[in-house]
């Protein structure tokens, strides 16, 4: 049954973001703000960097504001002014990524002005941007979101999103795959990975893939084949999931940008689930100096080691 999701607060949120952006830019508290602006297609939104208070009116927040803007602070730094504090509009899921980046010393909290967004959910990548938000059109990640209200921001509009309980698609899909035999799982992933065209959009959009040189681009030694063929694809996706294990904040941007619709976030969610079970670690709003895979305790489980 299709359920409509209340997005009435988004208009008030947009207004609050605009006036706050206007204020901090005019007062010189920040040199630039990374946010969302309306794009050319009806109802769509795109990222924007504004540096003057006059442009504050351009900022919006709608269900089409799908991007995780945190990536602009790690990779596209060139478009962002070098000096001063940077303002950024963040949904709860994006904030988790920012917090992770702070934990990895990629960003400093005092250099950021966080404008949190109370968010009831955004549209899935395959949906037209002017569609209303319903339980059918909502992004899968929003179905299991526990971060509708970001915490620890410098400014959060006062509205509270109304969020109905929805079926957890990732959790259900992981459970389905786990119940299969290894051969069936291999067949499933073989088919998924064989679709990959190695465009590396998943890497480009990921806030955590910030290495200056990716292991998968190196050719001395070449660890992963670079051509879009089955063996190299499988290796790439395993390496990607492994490098994000214990770091991925679940913004699901990799899955959104994948032109071949490979369920990439499924691997990330699976790893997050396992690390929660093994080491009680979860991406959240608190900055941790060390993630689960670069810390240890002497009592860690070693039942699998002879």
């Amino acid at each position, binding site marked *: 049954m299709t359920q409509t999701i209340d997005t009435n607060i988004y208009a008030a949120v947009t207004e609050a973001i605009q006036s706050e952006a206007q204020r901090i830019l005019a007062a010189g508290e920040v040199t630039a703000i990374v946010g969302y602006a309306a794009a050319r297609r009806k109802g769509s939104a795109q990222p924007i960097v504004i540096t003057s208070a006059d442009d504050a009116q351009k900022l919006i927040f709608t269900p089409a504001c799908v991007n995780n803007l945190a990536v602009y602070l790690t990779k596209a730094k060139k478009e962002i002014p070098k000096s001063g504090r940077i303002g950024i509009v963040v949904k709860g899921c994006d904030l988790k990524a920012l917090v992770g980046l702070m934990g990895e010393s990629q960003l400093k909290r005092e250099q950021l002005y966080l404008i949190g967004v109370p968010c009831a959910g955004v549209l899935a990548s395959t949906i037209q941007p002017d569609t209303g938000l319903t339980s059918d059109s909502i992004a899968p990640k929003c179905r299991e979101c526990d971060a509708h209200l970001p915490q620890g921001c410098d400014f959060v509009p006062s509205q509270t999103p109304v969020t109905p309980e929805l079926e957890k698609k990732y959790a259900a899909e992981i459970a389905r795959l786990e119940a299969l035999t290894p*051969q069936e799982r*291999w067949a499933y992933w073989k088919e998924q990975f064989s679709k990959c065209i190695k465009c590396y959009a998943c890497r480009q959009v990921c806030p955590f893939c910030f290495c200056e040189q990716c292991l998968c681009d190196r050719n001395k030694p070449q660890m992963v084949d670079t051509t879009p*063929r089955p063996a190299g694809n499988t290796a790439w996706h*395993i390496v990607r999931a*492994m490098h994000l294990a214990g770091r991925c904040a679940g913004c699901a941007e990799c899955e959104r940008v994948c032109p071949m619709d490979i369920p990439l976030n499924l691997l990330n969610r699976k*790893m997050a689930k396992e690390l929660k079970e*093994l080491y009680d670690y979860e991406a959240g709003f608190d900055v941790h100096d060390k993630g689960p*895979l670069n810390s240890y*305790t002497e009592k860690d489980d070693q039942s*699998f080691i002879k």
Partner: protein
Amino acid sequence: MHPEKQKHDFEPKIIAFVCTWCTYAGADLAGTSRMQYPANVRVLKFPCTGRIDPVFILKAFQQGADGVLVSGCHPGDCHYIAGNFHARRRFAAFRKLLEFVGVDLERLQFSWVSAAEGGKWVEVVSDLTEKVRNMGPMTEFKELALEEQWSGTINTEELKEAYKQI
């Protein structure tokens, strides 16, 4: 003298990633003590288990390994103090990932073998070799690699036509 060597139909290829301080020395001890163990194992020496990237294991499977053994110092004995603690977490996570992708974890063995445990090295290697021998060759990754090869048969009219044009 050497015992009569048993003949097998299938000799698995086992790649062992070992730490130089413990397991390599342990394997050395097994050798100098004249202990017998299967020659199926190819030993690769690393400074520490913490140096062994999961991608090495993947690469080993892709290059035709039927089984992989990763072995290093017992927890607390690491030459670099905590390398094996970090490795332990990393491999625990990597196992879960491989399992989810559908790789049979029976082919991947982790162990702690100290420099004094020549006997344990023999036991670990023999057990893994026998286990993998019974399972047969690892075909999953090889099939992936084979799919990359152009079959070379020009079997359709279209292809024949195109071939003539060249």
